[in-house]
Protein backbone atom coordinates (compact mmCIF):
# COMPACT_ATOMS: atom_id res chain seq x y z
CA UNK A 1 0.00 0.00 0.00
CA UNK A 2 3.00 2.35 0.08
CA UNK A 3 2.50 3.67 -3.46
CA UNK A 4 -1.09 4.25 -2.58
CA UNK A 5 -0.29 6.37 0.43
CA UNK A 6 2.13 8.29 -1.82
CA UNK A 7 -0.81 9.04 -4.08
CA UNK A 8 -3.47 9.74 -1.50
CA UNK A 9 -1.50 11.88 0.93
CA UNK A 10 -3.37 13.64 3.72
CA UNK A 11 -2.96 17.03 2.07
CA UNK A 12 -4.53 15.74 -1.13
CA UNK A 13 -7.41 14.13 0.75
CA UNK A 14 -7.91 17.37 2.63
CA UNK A 15 -8.05 19.50 -0.54
CA UNK A 16 -10.45 16.95 -2.01
CA UNK A 17 -12.78 17.32 0.95
CA UNK A 18 -12.39 21.07 1.33
CA UNK A 19 -11.32 22.48 -2.00
CA UNK A 20 -9.91 26.03 -1.82
CA UNK A 21 -11.11 28.80 -4.14
CA UNK A 22 -14.00 26.56 -5.07
CA UNK A 23 -16.51 29.03 -6.46
CA UNK A 24 -17.40 31.01 -9.50
CA UNK A 25 -15.34 34.19 -9.73
CA UNK A 26 -17.58 37.20 -10.30
CA UNK A 27 -14.67 39.39 -11.32
CA UNK A 28 -13.31 36.91 -13.85
CA UNK A 29 -12.33 38.21 -17.24
CA UNK A 30 -11.19 34.85 -18.54
CA UNK A 31 -12.44 31.33 -18.09
CA UNK A 32 -12.29 27.91 -19.64
CA UNK A 33 -13.96 24.57 -19.25
CA UNK A 34 -11.93 21.40 -19.07
CA UNK A 35 -13.37 17.99 -19.71
CA UNK A 36 -11.95 14.52 -19.45
CA UNK A 37 -14.33 12.35 -21.47
CA UNK A 38 -12.73 9.15 -20.24
CA UNK A 39 -13.72 9.80 -16.64
CA UNK A 40 -16.40 12.41 -17.00
CA UNK A 41 -14.32 14.82 -14.91
CA UNK A 42 -15.36 18.36 -15.66
CA UNK A 43 -14.18 21.68 -14.30
CA UNK A 44 -14.27 25.40 -14.95
CA UNK A 45 -11.36 27.69 -14.25
CA UNK A 46 -12.00 31.40 -13.69
CA UNK A 47 -9.29 34.02 -13.91
CA UNK A 48 -9.06 37.68 -13.18
CA UNK A 49 -6.06 38.78 -15.21
CA UNK A 50 -4.73 42.31 -14.90
CA UNK A 51 -1.55 43.58 -16.55
CA UNK A 52 -0.44 40.04 -17.21
CA UNK A 53 -0.90 39.11 -13.58
CA UNK A 54 -3.31 36.47 -12.22
CA UNK A 55 -5.03 38.64 -9.64
CA UNK A 56 -7.51 35.98 -8.69
CA UNK A 57 -8.17 32.35 -9.59
CA UNK A 58 -11.01 30.00 -8.79
CA UNK A 59 -12.59 26.78 -10.01
CA UNK A 60 -15.78 24.76 -9.99
CA UNK A 61 -16.64 21.27 -11.13
CA UNK A 62 -16.63 17.62 -10.28
CA UNK A 63 -14.02 14.95 -10.47
CA UNK A 64 -11.92 12.46 -8.57
CA UNK A 65 -9.83 13.31 -5.53
CA UNK A 66 -6.69 13.78 -7.60
CA UNK A 67 -8.25 16.19 -10.08
CA UNK A 68 -10.06 18.17 -7.42
CA UNK A 69 -7.07 18.47 -5.11
CA UNK A 70 -4.86 19.37 -8.04
CA UNK A 71 -7.23 22.15 -9.10
CA UNK A 72 -7.51 23.42 -5.56
CA UNK A 73 -3.75 23.55 -4.99
CA UNK A 74 -3.18 25.01 -8.43
CA UNK A 75 -5.38 28.00 -7.65
CA UNK A 76 -3.26 28.66 -4.57
CA UNK A 77 -0.01 28.18 -6.43
CA UNK A 78 -0.68 30.55 -9.33
CA UNK A 79 -2.59 33.31 -7.57
CA UNK A 80 -0.56 36.52 -7.84
CA UNK A 81 1.83 35.03 -10.39
CA UNK A 82 2.40 36.37 -13.89
CA UNK A 83 1.09 34.52 -16.90
CA UNK A 84 4.60 33.39 -17.74
CA UNK A 85 5.30 32.14 -14.22
CA UNK A 86 2.06 30.17 -14.23
CA UNK A 87 2.95 28.53 -17.53
CA UNK A 88 6.39 27.66 -16.18
CA UNK A 89 4.91 25.94 -13.16
CA UNK A 90 2.50 24.05 -15.42
CA UNK A 91 5.44 22.83 -17.48
CA UNK A 92 7.33 21.69 -14.40
CA UNK A 93 4.22 20.07 -12.93
CA UNK A 94 3.54 18.24 -16.15
CA UNK A 95 7.11 16.98 -16.37
CA UNK A 96 7.02 15.88 -12.74
CA UNK A 97 3.85 13.79 -13.00
CA UNK A 98 5.00 12.19 -16.22
CA UNK A 99 8.36 11.29 -14.69
CA UNK A 100 10.47 13.75 -16.68
CA UNK A 101 11.45 16.00 -13.82
CA UNK A 102 13.00 14.87 -10.58
CA UNK A 103 11.62 17.41 -8.16
CA UNK A 104 14.11 16.45 -5.48
CA UNK A 105 17.23 16.88 -7.60
CA UNK A 106 16.35 19.55 -10.16
CA UNK A 107 15.60 23.13 -9.22
CA UNK A 108 11.95 24.06 -9.69
CA UNK A 109 9.16 26.39 -8.62
CA UNK A 110 6.75 23.64 -7.59
CA UNK A 111 6.79 24.14 -3.84
CA UNK A 112 3.95 22.23 -2.18
CA UNK A 113 2.82 20.89 -5.54
CA UNK A 114 5.55 18.24 -5.31
CA UNK A 115 3.02 16.33 -3.26
CA UNK A 116 1.63 15.16 -6.61
CA UNK A 117 4.89 13.43 -7.55
CA UNK A 118 3.31 10.07 -6.63
CA UNK A 119 0.98 10.37 -9.60
CA UNK A 120 3.85 9.33 -11.87
CA UNK A 121 3.44 5.77 -10.58
CA UNK A 122 -0.17 5.79 -11.81
CA UNK A 123 0.01 6.62 -15.52
CA UNK A 124 -3.76 6.42 -16.00
CA UNK A 125 -4.22 9.11 -13.37
CA UNK A 126 -1.88 11.68 -14.95
CA UNK A 127 -4.78 13.24 -16.83
CA UNK A 128 -6.65 13.70 -13.57
CA UNK A 129 -3.76 15.64 -12.09
CA UNK A 130 -3.20 17.80 -15.15
CA UNK A 131 -6.78 18.58 -16.14
CA UNK A 132 -6.91 21.79 -14.10
CA UNK A 133 -3.57 22.90 -15.49
CA UNK A 134 -4.56 22.27 -19.10
CA UNK A 135 -7.72 24.23 -18.44
CA UNK A 136 -5.77 27.09 -16.89
CA UNK A 137 -3.54 27.12 -19.95
CA UNK A 138 -6.64 27.27 -22.17
CA UNK A 139 -8.10 30.16 -20.17
CA UNK A 140 -4.83 32.07 -20.42
CA UNK A 141 -4.81 31.54 -24.16
CA UNK A 142 -8.49 32.32 -24.69
CA UNK A 143 -9.61 28.82 -25.64
CA UNK A 144 -13.09 28.32 -24.20
CA UNK A 145 -13.06 24.51 -23.81
CA UNK A 146 -10.49 21.78 -23.81
CA UNK A 147 -10.72 18.04 -23.72
CA UNK A 148 -7.97 15.69 -22.61
CA UNK A 149 -8.74 13.48 -25.59
CA UNK A 150 -7.66 16.03 -28.19
Amino acid sequence: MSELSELYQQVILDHNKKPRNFRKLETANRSAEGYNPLCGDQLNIYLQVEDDQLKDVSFEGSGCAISKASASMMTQAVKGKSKQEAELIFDEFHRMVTGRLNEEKEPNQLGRLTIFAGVRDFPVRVKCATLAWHTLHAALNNQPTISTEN
Partner: protein
Amino acid sequence: MAAIVEELISIRPKPSDGWNVERIRKDFPVLRQTVNGKPLVYLDNAASSQVPVMVIERGAQYIEQEHSNIHRGVHYLSMRATTAYEGAREKVKRFINARDVKECIFVRGATEGVNLVMHGYGRKFIGEGDEIIISALEHHANIVPWQMLCEERGAKLRVIPMNDAGELLMDEYQALLNERTKFVAVTHVSNALGSVVPVRDVIESAHKYGAPVLIDGAQWAPHARIDVQDLDCDFYTFSGHKIFAPTGSGVVYGKADLLEKMNPFQGGGDMIKSVTFEKTIYADLPNKFEAGTPAIASQIGLGAAIDYLNIIGREKAAAYEHQLLSYATERISALEGVRIIGTAREKLGVLSFTIDGVHPHDIGTILDQQGIAVRAGHHCAQPVMKRFNLPATARASFAFYNTTEEIDQLINAIEKVIEVFV
Protein backbone atom coordinates in the same frame (compact mmCIF):
# COMPACT_ATOMS: atom_id res chain seq x y z
CA MET B 1 -20.94 -22.24 -51.05
CA ALA B 2 -21.86 -25.19 -48.91
CA ALA B 3 -20.43 -24.75 -45.46
CA ILE B 4 -18.00 -27.48 -44.63
CA VAL B 5 -18.61 -28.18 -41.02
CA GLU B 6 -15.66 -28.66 -38.77
CA GLU B 7 -16.10 -31.66 -36.58
CA LEU B 8 -18.06 -30.58 -33.55
CA ILE B 9 -16.70 -31.47 -30.20
CA SER B 10 -19.08 -33.70 -28.32
CA ILE B 11 -21.06 -31.45 -26.07
CA ARG B 12 -22.02 -33.36 -23.00
CA PRO B 13 -21.80 -31.54 -19.69
CA LYS B 14 -19.98 -33.46 -16.99
CA PRO B 15 -22.43 -35.02 -14.56
CA SER B 16 -21.53 -33.32 -11.31
CA ASP B 17 -23.79 -31.33 -9.06
CA GLY B 18 -21.68 -28.51 -7.68
CA TRP B 19 -19.65 -26.05 -9.64
CA ASN B 20 -15.98 -26.93 -9.43
CA VAL B 21 -14.68 -23.41 -9.75
CA GLU B 22 -11.09 -24.36 -8.92
CA ARG B 23 -11.02 -26.75 -11.84
CA ILE B 24 -12.60 -24.16 -14.13
CA ARG B 25 -10.03 -21.54 -13.11
CA LYS B 26 -7.23 -23.79 -14.34
CA ASP B 27 -8.60 -23.31 -17.85
CA PHE B 28 -7.81 -19.57 -17.72
CA PRO B 29 -4.07 -18.80 -17.78
CA VAL B 30 -4.62 -15.07 -17.18
CA LEU B 31 -6.00 -15.75 -13.73
CA ARG B 32 -2.73 -17.22 -12.51
CA GLN B 33 -0.89 -13.92 -12.28
CA THR B 34 -0.33 -11.45 -9.51
CA VAL B 35 -1.00 -7.73 -9.82
CA ASN B 36 0.72 -5.28 -7.51
CA GLY B 37 1.91 -8.28 -5.55
CA LYS B 38 -1.60 -9.65 -5.02
CA PRO B 39 -3.34 -12.49 -6.87
CA LEU B 40 -5.37 -11.00 -9.69
CA VAL B 41 -9.07 -10.68 -8.87
CA TYR B 42 -10.68 -10.07 -12.22
CA LEU B 43 -14.08 -8.45 -11.85
CA ASP B 44 -14.26 -6.55 -15.13
CA ASN B 45 -15.88 -9.30 -17.16
CA ALA B 46 -18.57 -7.05 -18.61
CA ALA B 47 -15.82 -5.10 -20.39
CA SER B 48 -13.94 -8.17 -21.62
CA SER B 49 -13.94 -11.69 -20.28
CA GLN B 50 -10.91 -13.99 -20.19
CA VAL B 51 -9.96 -16.64 -22.70
CA PRO B 52 -9.66 -20.35 -21.84
CA VAL B 53 -6.74 -22.50 -23.02
CA MET B 54 -8.96 -24.38 -25.42
CA VAL B 55 -9.73 -21.18 -27.31
CA ILE B 56 -6.14 -19.94 -27.22
CA GLU B 57 -4.95 -23.26 -28.62
CA ARG B 58 -7.51 -23.25 -31.41
CA GLY B 59 -6.46 -19.75 -32.46
CA ALA B 60 -2.80 -20.72 -32.25
CA GLN B 61 -3.47 -23.81 -34.36
CA TYR B 62 -4.84 -21.61 -37.14
CA ILE B 63 -1.78 -19.39 -36.97
CA GLU B 64 0.68 -22.25 -36.77
CA GLN B 65 -0.86 -24.66 -39.24
CA GLU B 66 -3.64 -23.08 -41.27
CA HIS B 67 -2.74 -19.42 -41.65
CA SER B 68 -4.07 -18.34 -45.03
CA ASN B 69 -7.01 -16.51 -46.48
CA ILE B 70 -10.48 -17.96 -46.67
CA HIS B 71 -12.84 -18.49 -49.59
CA ARG B 72 -10.02 -17.68 -51.98
CA GLY B 73 -7.61 -20.51 -52.43
CA VAL B 74 -7.81 -23.90 -54.02
CA HIS B 75 -4.80 -24.86 -51.97
CA TYR B 76 -4.69 -26.99 -48.86
CA LEU B 77 -4.17 -24.32 -46.21
CA SER B 78 -6.90 -22.09 -47.53
CA MET B 79 -9.34 -24.96 -47.56
CA ARG B 80 -8.50 -25.83 -43.99
CA ALA B 81 -8.86 -22.21 -42.89
CA THR B 82 -12.17 -21.91 -44.71
CA THR B 83 -13.42 -25.11 -43.12
CA ALA B 84 -12.50 -23.86 -39.67
CA TYR B 85 -14.03 -20.43 -40.25
CA GLU B 86 -17.29 -21.80 -41.62
CA GLY B 87 -17.26 -24.39 -38.85
CA ALA B 88 -17.27 -21.54 -36.34
CA ARG B 89 -20.28 -20.08 -38.12
CA GLU B 90 -22.10 -23.40 -37.79
CA LYS B 91 -21.35 -23.38 -34.06
CA VAL B 92 -22.73 -19.85 -33.79
CA LYS B 93 -25.86 -20.93 -35.61
CA ARG B 94 -26.50 -23.64 -33.02
CA PHE B 95 -25.50 -21.34 -30.18
CA ILE B 96 -28.24 -18.84 -31.03
CA ASN B 97 -30.59 -21.34 -32.71
CA ALA B 98 -30.71 -19.54 -36.04
CA ARG B 99 -32.58 -21.25 -38.86
CA ASP B 100 -29.64 -21.07 -41.19
CA VAL B 101 -25.90 -20.36 -41.07
CA LYS B 102 -26.36 -17.66 -43.70
CA GLU B 103 -28.19 -15.59 -41.08
CA CYS B 104 -25.06 -15.43 -38.93
CA ILE B 105 -22.84 -12.57 -40.07
CA PHE B 106 -19.38 -12.31 -38.56
CA VAL B 107 -18.48 -8.82 -37.37
CA ARG B 108 -15.81 -7.22 -35.20
CA GLY B 109 -18.16 -6.99 -32.23
CA ALA B 110 -21.54 -5.65 -31.14
CA THR B 111 -20.63 -2.11 -32.23
CA GLU B 112 -20.05 -3.24 -35.77
CA GLY B 113 -23.18 -5.36 -35.58
CA VAL B 114 -25.36 -2.36 -34.80
CA ASN B 115 -23.63 -0.26 -37.44
CA LEU B 116 -24.13 -2.96 -40.04
CA VAL B 117 -27.87 -2.97 -39.39
CA MET B 118 -28.03 0.82 -39.31
CA HIS B 119 -26.30 1.10 -42.69
CA GLY B 120 -27.81 -1.96 -44.34
CA TYR B 121 -31.37 -1.63 -43.12
CA GLY B 122 -31.71 1.86 -41.67
CA ARG B 123 -30.27 3.84 -44.54
CA LYS B 124 -32.36 1.91 -47.01
CA PHE B 125 -35.71 1.80 -45.25
CA ILE B 126 -35.89 4.68 -42.78
CA GLY B 127 -36.80 8.15 -43.98
CA GLU B 128 -38.05 11.54 -42.99
CA GLY B 129 -40.60 11.61 -40.20
CA ASP B 130 -40.02 7.97 -39.29
CA GLU B 131 -39.31 7.07 -35.69
CA ILE B 132 -36.72 4.81 -34.14
CA ILE B 133 -37.15 3.64 -30.56
CA ILE B 134 -34.22 2.85 -28.28
CA SER B 135 -34.11 2.70 -24.47
CA ALA B 136 -32.66 4.71 -21.63
CA LEU B 137 -30.39 1.76 -20.80
CA GLU B 138 -28.41 1.69 -24.01
CA HIS B 139 -24.66 1.53 -24.43
CA HIS B 140 -23.34 4.27 -26.72
CA ALA B 141 -22.97 1.57 -29.39
CA ASN B 142 -26.75 1.34 -29.61
CA ILE B 143 -27.36 5.10 -29.43
CA VAL B 144 -24.88 6.89 -31.64
CA PRO B 145 -25.46 4.92 -34.88
CA TRP B 146 -29.21 5.58 -34.64
CA GLN B 147 -28.61 9.25 -33.91
CA MET B 148 -26.41 9.46 -36.99
CA LEU B 149 -29.15 7.85 -39.04
CA CYS B 150 -31.82 10.18 -37.66
CA GLU B 151 -29.69 13.18 -38.47
CA GLU B 152 -29.04 12.00 -41.97
CA ARG B 153 -32.62 10.97 -42.73
CA GLY B 154 -34.65 13.44 -40.74
CA ALA B 155 -36.01 10.63 -38.60
CA LYS B 156 -36.77 10.94 -34.91
CA LEU B 157 -35.19 9.09 -32.00
CA ARG B 158 -37.57 8.13 -29.18
CA VAL B 159 -36.34 6.76 -25.88
CA ILE B 160 -38.08 4.33 -23.53
CA PRO B 161 -37.55 5.77 -20.03
CA MET B 162 -36.69 3.80 -16.90
CA ASN B 163 -37.56 3.92 -13.21
CA ASP B 164 -35.17 4.50 -10.31
CA ALA B 165 -34.42 0.80 -10.10
CA GLY B 166 -33.19 0.75 -13.68
CA GLU B 167 -36.21 -1.03 -15.16
CA LEU B 168 -37.71 0.11 -18.43
CA LEU B 169 -41.21 1.57 -18.20
CA MET B 170 -43.04 -0.74 -20.52
CA ASP B 171 -46.24 1.32 -20.47
CA GLU B 172 -44.26 4.26 -21.76
CA TYR B 173 -42.89 2.02 -24.46
CA GLN B 174 -46.40 1.08 -25.54
CA ALA B 175 -47.24 4.77 -25.70
CA LEU B 176 -44.23 5.51 -27.92
CA LEU B 177 -45.16 2.89 -30.50
CA ASN B 178 -47.17 4.12 -33.47
CA GLU B 179 -47.45 3.84 -37.24
CA ARG B 180 -44.34 5.96 -37.69
CA THR B 181 -42.23 3.54 -35.64
CA LYS B 182 -39.92 1.99 -38.21
CA PHE B 183 -37.31 0.37 -36.00
CA VAL B 184 -36.71 -0.64 -32.38
CA ALA B 185 -33.23 -1.26 -30.96
CA VAL B 186 -32.83 -2.25 -27.31
CA THR B 187 -30.28 -3.92 -25.12
CA HIS B 188 -30.95 -7.36 -23.64
CA VAL B 189 -29.04 -6.53 -20.45
CA SER B 190 -27.75 -3.13 -19.34
CA ASN B 191 -23.96 -3.06 -19.13
CA ALA B 192 -24.04 -0.23 -16.60
CA LEU B 193 -26.73 -1.55 -14.25
CA GLY B 194 -27.23 -5.22 -15.07
CA SER B 195 -30.99 -4.84 -15.61
CA VAL B 196 -32.54 -7.50 -17.81
CA VAL B 197 -34.91 -6.05 -20.38
CA PRO B 198 -38.12 -7.99 -21.17
CA VAL B 199 -37.14 -8.19 -24.82
CA ARG B 200 -39.82 -10.70 -25.68
CA ASP B 201 -42.49 -8.09 -24.90
CA VAL B 202 -40.51 -5.39 -26.68
CA ILE B 203 -40.35 -7.52 -29.82
CA GLU B 204 -43.95 -8.64 -29.77
CA SER B 205 -45.28 -5.11 -29.39
CA ALA B 206 -43.01 -3.68 -32.10
CA HIS B 207 -44.12 -6.35 -34.52
CA LYS B 208 -47.73 -5.25 -34.10
CA TYR B 209 -46.61 -2.06 -35.84
CA GLY B 210 -44.47 -3.91 -38.35
CA ALA B 211 -41.23 -2.52 -36.90
CA PRO B 212 -38.19 -4.80 -36.91
CA VAL B 213 -36.28 -5.16 -33.66
CA LEU B 214 -32.54 -5.35 -32.99
CA ILE B 215 -31.42 -6.79 -29.67
CA ASP B 216 -27.99 -5.82 -28.36
CA GLY B 217 -27.03 -9.05 -26.63
CA ALA B 218 -23.47 -8.05 -25.65
CA GLN B 219 -24.20 -8.51 -21.94
CA TRP B 220 -26.69 -11.34 -22.20
CA ALA B 221 -24.65 -13.69 -24.38
CA PRO B 222 -21.99 -14.43 -21.71
CA HIS B 223 -24.60 -15.53 -19.19
CA ALA B 224 -27.67 -17.12 -20.67
CA ARG B 225 -29.15 -19.08 -23.55
CA ILE B 226 -30.05 -17.28 -26.77
CA ASP B 227 -32.82 -18.54 -29.02
CA VAL B 228 -33.40 -16.07 -31.81
CA GLN B 229 -36.29 -18.07 -33.26
CA ASP B 230 -38.07 -18.28 -29.98
CA LEU B 231 -37.53 -14.55 -29.31
CA ASP B 232 -38.54 -13.77 -32.88
CA CYS B 233 -36.10 -10.85 -32.94
CA ASP B 234 -35.15 -9.55 -36.37
CA PHE B 235 -31.52 -8.84 -35.47
CA TYR B 236 -29.34 -9.93 -32.57
CA THR B 237 -25.73 -8.95 -31.97
CA PHE B 238 -22.97 -9.76 -29.49
CA SER B 239 -19.19 -9.50 -29.09
CA GLY B 240 -16.84 -12.47 -28.91
CA HIS B 241 -14.47 -10.85 -26.43
CA LYS B 242 -17.20 -10.81 -23.80
CA ILE B 243 -17.93 -14.51 -24.20
CA PHE B 244 -14.44 -15.92 -23.69
CA ALA B 245 -13.18 -15.47 -27.25
CA PRO B 246 -10.52 -13.05 -28.51
CA THR B 247 -11.19 -9.44 -29.48
CA GLY B 248 -12.19 -8.82 -33.06
CA SER B 249 -14.81 -11.56 -33.12
CA GLY B 250 -18.55 -11.12 -32.98
CA VAL B 251 -21.84 -11.87 -34.62
CA VAL B 252 -24.87 -10.10 -35.93
CA TYR B 253 -27.78 -12.37 -36.64
CA GLY B 254 -30.48 -11.22 -39.01
CA LYS B 255 -33.57 -12.89 -40.42
CA ALA B 256 -32.69 -14.04 -43.91
CA ASP B 257 -35.49 -12.17 -45.69
CA LEU B 258 -34.39 -8.89 -44.10
CA LEU B 259 -30.70 -9.47 -44.78
CA GLU B 260 -31.56 -10.28 -48.40
CA LYS B 261 -33.27 -6.98 -49.02
CA MET B 262 -30.74 -4.84 -47.12
CA ASN B 263 -27.89 -2.90 -48.63
CA PRO B 264 -24.42 -4.34 -48.07
CA PHE B 265 -22.39 -2.75 -45.29
CA GLN B 266 -18.89 -2.37 -46.65
CA GLY B 267 -17.82 -2.95 -50.22
CA GLY B 268 -14.79 -4.92 -51.27
CA GLY B 269 -13.45 -8.38 -51.83
CA ASP B 270 -15.42 -11.47 -50.84
CA MET B 271 -18.78 -9.70 -50.83
CA ILE B 272 -19.30 -9.89 -54.58
CA LYS B 273 -20.32 -12.36 -57.26
CA SER B 274 -18.98 -10.28 -60.12
CA VAL B 275 -17.56 -6.83 -60.60
CA THR B 276 -17.37 -4.72 -63.72
CA PHE B 277 -16.94 -0.97 -63.84
CA GLU B 278 -20.60 -0.71 -64.79
CA LYS B 279 -22.12 -2.96 -62.15
CA THR B 280 -21.37 -5.20 -59.21
CA ILE B 281 -23.47 -8.18 -58.29
CA TYR B 282 -23.31 -8.88 -54.59
CA ALA B 283 -22.58 -12.25 -53.10
CA ASP B 284 -25.23 -14.33 -51.38
CA LEU B 285 -25.60 -14.33 -47.62
CA PRO B 286 -23.63 -14.26 -45.43
CA ASN B 287 -20.72 -13.13 -47.65
CA LYS B 288 -22.65 -10.09 -48.86
CA PHE B 289 -21.94 -8.55 -45.46
CA GLU B 290 -18.37 -9.73 -45.00
CA ALA B 291 -16.16 -7.56 -47.18
CA GLY B 292 -12.43 -8.06 -46.94
CA THR B 293 -10.38 -10.41 -44.81
CA PRO B 294 -11.98 -10.88 -41.40
CA ALA B 295 -10.37 -11.62 -38.03
CA ILE B 296 -10.09 -15.30 -38.91
CA ALA B 297 -8.19 -16.48 -35.83
CA SER B 298 -10.62 -14.63 -33.55
CA GLN B 299 -13.75 -15.95 -35.23
CA ILE B 300 -12.40 -19.49 -35.14
CA GLY B 301 -11.69 -18.78 -31.48
CA LEU B 302 -15.31 -17.76 -31.01
CA GLY B 303 -16.34 -21.16 -32.32
CA ALA B 304 -14.01 -22.79 -29.79
CA ALA B 305 -15.40 -20.58 -26.99
CA ILE B 306 -18.89 -21.84 -27.82
CA ASP B 307 -17.57 -25.42 -27.61
CA TYR B 308 -16.04 -24.58 -24.25
CA LEU B 309 -19.31 -23.17 -22.91
CA ASN B 310 -21.14 -26.27 -24.07
CA ILE B 311 -18.61 -28.53 -22.38
CA ILE B 312 -18.71 -26.81 -19.01
CA GLY B 313 -22.49 -26.55 -19.18
CA ARG B 314 -24.13 -23.20 -19.70
CA GLU B 315 -27.02 -23.76 -17.31
CA LYS B 316 -24.75 -24.71 -14.43
CA ALA B 317 -22.45 -21.78 -15.14
CA ALA B 318 -25.44 -19.45 -15.15
CA ALA B 319 -26.75 -20.80 -11.86
CA TYR B 320 -23.34 -20.31 -10.27
CA GLU B 321 -23.04 -16.75 -11.61
CA HIS B 322 -26.44 -16.02 -10.18
CA GLN B 323 -25.20 -17.13 -6.75
CA LEU B 324 -22.13 -14.90 -7.09
CA LEU B 325 -24.23 -11.86 -7.94
CA SER B 326 -26.62 -12.48 -5.04
CA TYR B 327 -23.75 -12.95 -2.63
CA ALA B 328 -21.97 -9.80 -3.80
CA THR B 329 -25.21 -7.81 -3.67
CA GLU B 330 -25.89 -8.97 -0.13
CA ARG B 331 -22.38 -8.16 1.09
CA ILE B 332 -22.14 -4.76 -0.59
CA SER B 333 -25.60 -3.76 0.64
CA ALA B 334 -24.43 -4.32 4.18
CA LEU B 335 -21.64 -1.73 3.88
CA GLU B 336 -22.41 1.67 5.27
CA GLY B 337 -22.04 4.54 2.82
CA VAL B 338 -22.05 2.22 -0.19
CA ARG B 339 -24.95 2.46 -2.61
CA ILE B 340 -25.85 -0.05 -5.29
CA ILE B 341 -26.88 1.63 -8.55
CA GLY B 342 -29.40 -0.48 -10.42
CA THR B 343 -31.75 -2.55 -8.35
CA ALA B 344 -33.91 -4.11 -11.03
CA ARG B 345 -35.76 -7.25 -9.98
CA GLU B 346 -34.04 -9.19 -12.69
CA LYS B 347 -30.30 -8.62 -13.10
CA LEU B 348 -27.40 -10.40 -14.72
CA GLY B 349 -23.69 -10.29 -14.09
CA VAL B 350 -23.21 -6.63 -13.16
CA LEU B 351 -23.02 -4.78 -9.86
CA SER B 352 -22.60 -1.01 -10.06
CA PHE B 353 -21.99 0.95 -6.89
CA THR B 354 -20.84 4.24 -5.45
CA ILE B 355 -19.26 5.14 -2.12
CA ASP B 356 -20.36 8.35 -0.42
CA GLY B 357 -17.78 11.08 -0.84
CA VAL B 358 -15.44 9.00 -3.00
CA HIS B 359 -15.14 9.37 -6.74
CA PRO B 360 -15.31 6.02 -8.60
CA HIS B 361 -11.87 6.57 -10.11
CA ASP B 362 -10.32 6.74 -6.71
CA ILE B 363 -12.15 3.51 -5.87
CA GLY B 364 -10.76 1.93 -9.05
CA THR B 365 -7.19 2.94 -8.27
CA ILE B 366 -7.30 1.74 -4.67
CA LEU B 367 -8.87 -1.58 -5.71
CA ASP B 368 -6.27 -2.01 -8.43
CA GLN B 369 -3.52 -1.59 -5.86
CA GLN B 370 -4.97 -4.65 -4.21
CA GLY B 371 -5.02 -6.63 -7.44
CA ILE B 372 -8.75 -6.16 -7.99
CA ALA B 373 -9.87 -5.15 -11.47
CA VAL B 374 -13.18 -3.31 -11.67
CA ARG B 375 -14.42 -0.71 -14.10
CA ALA B 376 -14.74 2.87 -12.91
CA GLY B 377 -16.38 5.38 -15.19
CA HIS B 378 -19.51 5.98 -17.20
CA HIS B 379 -19.39 2.55 -18.88
CA CYS B 380 -20.07 4.05 -22.31
CA ALA B 381 -23.56 4.79 -21.05
CA GLN B 382 -23.51 8.48 -20.20
CA PRO B 383 -27.31 8.83 -20.43
CA VAL B 384 -27.66 6.12 -17.77
CA MET B 385 -25.28 8.02 -15.49
CA LYS B 386 -27.19 11.22 -16.11
CA ARG B 387 -30.47 9.52 -15.24
CA PHE B 388 -29.00 8.72 -11.82
CA ASN B 389 -27.30 12.11 -11.50
CA LEU B 390 -23.88 10.52 -11.25
CA PRO B 391 -20.68 11.28 -13.11
CA ALA B 392 -19.64 7.64 -12.89
CA THR B 393 -19.91 4.43 -10.89
CA ALA B 394 -17.61 1.60 -9.94
CA ARG B 395 -18.71 -1.68 -11.46
CA ALA B 396 -17.87 -5.24 -10.52
CA SER B 397 -18.96 -7.80 -13.10
CA PHE B 398 -18.79 -11.54 -12.74
CA ALA B 399 -18.02 -14.66 -14.69
CA PHE B 400 -18.28 -18.34 -13.73
CA TYR B 401 -14.57 -18.43 -12.83
CA ASN B 402 -14.95 -15.88 -10.05
CA THR B 403 -15.23 -17.07 -6.47
CA THR B 404 -16.99 -16.01 -3.30
CA GLU B 405 -13.52 -15.50 -1.78
CA GLU B 406 -12.83 -12.94 -4.47
CA ILE B 407 -16.01 -11.14 -3.52
CA ASP B 408 -14.84 -11.15 0.09
CA GLN B 409 -11.60 -9.55 -1.10
CA LEU B 410 -13.60 -6.94 -2.97
CA ILE B 411 -15.51 -6.14 0.20
CA ASN B 412 -12.28 -5.82 2.20
CA ALA B 413 -10.87 -3.53 -0.45
CA ILE B 414 -13.98 -1.34 -0.40
CA GLU B 415 -13.61 -1.08 3.35
CA LYS B 416 -10.02 0.01 2.75
CA VAL B 417 -11.25 2.75 0.39
CA ILE B 418 -13.61 4.03 3.04
CA GLU B 419 -10.78 3.96 5.57
CA VAL B 420 -8.49 6.04 3.31
CA PHE B 421 -11.15 8.63 2.60
CA VAL B 422 -12.95 9.02 5.88
